[in-house]
């Protein structure tokens, strides 16, 4: 599965980057979503994917019965997902407000602050 996932992750990154490089701010938003997904998936995948049991321990046991998936990347990804969601929410609203002010779905209309 990993080679397939590796390709998939590459595609997610590539599409996200392609979208972020557009002038349209709407595409920028969608690029953000994909980028976050790509990174999360990458962490999940590189840490090793397993079809073993999830990292849960049954009621009557001290340890899992057999192999379980590595819980740490899961916790890390969970944290990353929520962080990405927060950042995304902010970015999305920012873009909406920027659009209200600039009145164009065009990043090129927003270059007054640079020079």
């Amino acid at each position: 599965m990993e080679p397939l996932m590796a390709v998939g992750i590459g595609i997610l990154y590539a599409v996200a980057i392609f979208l972020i490089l557009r002038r349209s701010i709407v595409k920028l938003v969608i690029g953000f979503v994909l980028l976050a997904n790509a990174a999360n998936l990458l962490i999940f995948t590189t840490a090793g994917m397993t079809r073993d049991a999830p990292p849960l321990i049954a009621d009557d046991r001290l340890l899992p019965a057999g192999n379980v998936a590595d819980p740490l990347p899961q916790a890390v990804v969970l944290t990353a997902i929520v962080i990405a969601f927060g950042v995304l929410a902010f970015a999305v609203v920012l873009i909406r407000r920027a659009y209200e002010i600039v009145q164009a779905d065009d990043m090129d209309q927003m270059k007054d602050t640079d020079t």
Partner: protein
Amino acid sequence: MEYVIIMAQSIMGLALLLAFVRVVRGPSLPDRAVALELFSTIVMGLVGVQAIASGVASFLDVAIVIALMGFLASIGFARFLERGGLRDD
């Protein structure tokens, strides 16, 4: 039983792909939203199969979440349409 599970998974996987076809073809936003809804429903089915395949009942919680929360996306899209959001189909 293993074969049954594999077959069920494969059929559902195929269904996922077909649902995706409608997402791409649209043409209107409601069409796509409905396809997404179908997508999440199929995911629920896959969750059930996965629970059986792995023998881990905890997977069902995923299905509960989808069953209770999944339709919110459709509600969101509907609100978008009702409030006069752009139907750029």
